[in-house]
């Protein structure tokens, strides 16, 4: 495990998953790869915690799952954002941006 990677702050995994899925439907392994790639390997997603999160999002109706064929021609479970999921993504993105803005403001002025 690269030493410069950091663990995800509590509650951000859902946001990252939703954001990743907003581009295209992906299976679980691809979601974790994509998050690592995009964050230039800084963010390290504990692979074990990815699947409970995906199932939780599915239960809430923000993503839906269907079985399809993967890039290496295997059956895989693909997750796709629903309309409610898109709305949730907007909400969570807003909240995140407000939070980070506020935190950086505090860090800069204090």
């Amino acid at each position, binding site marked *: *495990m690269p030493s410069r990677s950091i663990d995800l702050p509590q509650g951000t995994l859902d946001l990252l998953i939703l954001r990743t899925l907003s581009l295209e439907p992906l*299976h*679980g*392994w691809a979601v974790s790869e994509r998050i690592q790639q995009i964050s230039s390997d800084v963010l390290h997603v*504990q*692979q*074990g*915690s990815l*699947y*409970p*999160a995906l*199932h*939780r999002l*599915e*239960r*809430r*109706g923000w993503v839906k799952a269907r*079985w399809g064929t*993967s890039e*290496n021609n*295997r*059956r*895989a*479970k693909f997750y796709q954002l629903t309309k*409610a999921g898109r709305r949730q993504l907007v909400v969570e993105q807003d909240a995140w941006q407000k939070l980070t803005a506020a935190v950086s403001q505090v860090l800069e002025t204090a």
Partner: protein
Amino acid sequence: MLLHDLLFRLRSLMRRSAAEDELDNELRFHLERQTDKYVKSGTSEAEAVRRARLEFGGLDQVKDECREARGVSFVESLVQDLHYAARTLLHSPAFTACAVLTLALGIGANTAIFSVVNRVLLNPLPYRNSQELLAARKNDSLPNLEDIQRQTKSFASSGGINIEPMDFTGKGEPVRVHGAYVDAGLFVTLGIQPMLGRWISADEDVKGGPRNAVVSYSFWRDFMGADPNVLGKAIRLSDNSYAVIGVMPRDFTLPKELADVFVSLWVAYPDAAAERDVHFMHTYWRLKPGVPLAQAQAEIAQADHRLAEAFPDTEKERGTLLIPLHEWLVGDVRSALLILFGAVGLVLLIACANFAMLLMARAVARQRELMIRASLGARNSRLIRQRLTESTLLALVGGAVGLVAAKAGTTLLLALRPAELHRFDAIPMDPRVFMFVFAISLLTGLLFGLLPAWSASRGDIAEALRENARSTATGVSRSPLRSFLVTGELALALILLAGAGLLIKGFLRLRSVDPGFNPANIITMYLQLPGTRYPQIPLQTNFRRELLARINSFPGVEAAMITDLPLAGNYVGHRVVIDGQPTPAVGTEPEVQTLSVMGNYFGVMQIPIRSGRDFRAMDREQQPRVAIVNEAFVRQLFPGQNPIGTRIDWARSDEPHEWMTIIGVVGDVKHSGLNQPVDPAVYAPFSQNDEAWRKFMTLVIRTRVPVAGLVEDVKKQVWSLDRQIPVSGIQSMDDLLAVSVAQERFNMLLLGSFAALAVALAGVGIYGMVAYRVNQRTHEIGVYIALGAQHRHVLRLVMKDGVKLGLLGIVLGLAGAIALTRVMVSLLFEVNPTDPATLIGVALLLAAVAMLACYIPARRALSIDPMTALRRE
């Protein structure tokens, strides 16, 4: 969103095996892709698999978390837990039986009392819109009732009823039945339709109206053979023929009265119906919908005022007070029932404390299993939940057994029930009772399962483990929860014991009250002469004299007669005036009980003559009128004087007065109840009776030896004089005395058995604690004995904690009892609710029980063989 969630969970649950397969496939796919990735980057196959698995974490744990995320895990693990709990409970039948029995006792007793409370206090009365029904506290007359109904707007209807015995003749032995003299408004007010036929209509309810009768279901069944074509048939009631026009439904009961036949008062007794100043009707009122009670009460007060102005001679002291029917009916028993309900709640608490201690002991016994499960990664919350499942399962089974016990208990309660509860001939288990049982079982299981589970998670288990490992000789277990439970249950047991002790003391005081007569060996019977055949006083007197003479000719018996028996609850009250004293204003004359007697009544009843003389044979018709008064009469009307020779008469009787001379004073007799004060009473001979309506009498027959067949012989004599006179109310004076204290006996027996149950449970609780500790400290005690400790040292060592906690509980219980027993004041007879002798007595009793409960298991400690104990190391 919520619906989606629910459907999703349900679907997941339904397709569980499919979902499990999918989960497997999904995760396997992930691992394969990850392995591929490492293989492609040049890692060896084996190393790639290893790295992928390592990165992923525990596969089973991830699966578990996924299930939980999908929301299936709760139900699934509940099913699992239940299965597991059932299996482990079946493996330890002794523990399971103890726990179920403990809870079944507590829950059963609660359910039995709750079903009575439910039936008596919570269920609505069986009348249409019964919340609109009111009863007047005082009786009234029909003319007044009709006037008030006309003058007020608040009431939809009103009705009156008076119960008098009637003779039903024509079918075998003459029978005395309860006749209800009513007006047509009564059943409109109660809102009940007859099962067959119809009710007496308003146009028939007039002087000279047709002689129609409505009969009760039981009368129809017992005396008319449940004849479906009964309508229009004639029955003979007190020498008059009535046509049956209706049969009441089977489950119908009057609010307070018992009645077999209903007839119109205006038809049956037009003269009595017209009398405004004789208030003998119970009256019931139905409010118009939406009218508040206060408004109705205000209106009726105005009507009372108008009546008082119109009839100042007789109606001056009106004051009709209306109360909701339900309150009127249950007012007397409510406080007793609520106290019993509270008491039985304490019993349940004690049972629960024992239940919790059983669970704790079991948890310690099973700590190895729990430890293994915990080290295998079972989370604490999961372990607690599993134990809760077990305790709840136990509680529900206990509740089910308790329900069966409660069913038997209510049958017993009904057999013991006092007169106030007599109209409740069945205590059904309705859905509310089932809900109650379910709720308290669930609550018990959760709450008292949580206590030990919670205390275990806080380290008591760890302590217990240490203890069991016998690694430290000083490892004395002082689980604070267990100590709390033992102290608490002893305190509660003491409160119950104090309550029971006070009731018992009050009951003994009540039973030791001198009733004023000797009830032993006296048989009583009630007779009533039909007015049609005995309209004049001489005819009545002849019948009485002849009957008495015939009974007194039996060997070994002595018989006399009185109008109303002591303790039977009835008497005729009259106002009196005293010769030579100024006549008091109308309505303020002193009121006294008036009793007519014949034969050697005072001798038979062994009522002492205090001064003057008894009646003699010469005190008869055509002779100077005489009377005997009781001591209360002298105390209230002739304080400090000798009343003998003074003359009295009924107030407002026609001039000139026919004075009665007081010839003697007899001892006071408890007429209204052992706990009631004695009212002034005047006894006069039946033969000098001047009221033809005094047609009734009660025979009192003292037998020197038990006489077989006496009742039948007396009946024969009655029927040889008149074949159509029913003989009823056959009971011994001892029975009558017992009935008069039935309510007190009921309260005492119930609270007494609750207290006994509580003491037994608390004793078992403290016993269990000491036994447990002896068991845990076998090794330490063995060492102690090996070092030469004497028996008393060992006893002191193991009993110390139990005795200390027991005493603490008793002291706390005493404080609680002093605070709580005052709610019982209304149930106690001449006993102070903080009666020191009782409190000290019950405290000593409980202390003795607690000592014994400590001593029995402590003795086991003495028999510990040091060598065996040490070898167990």
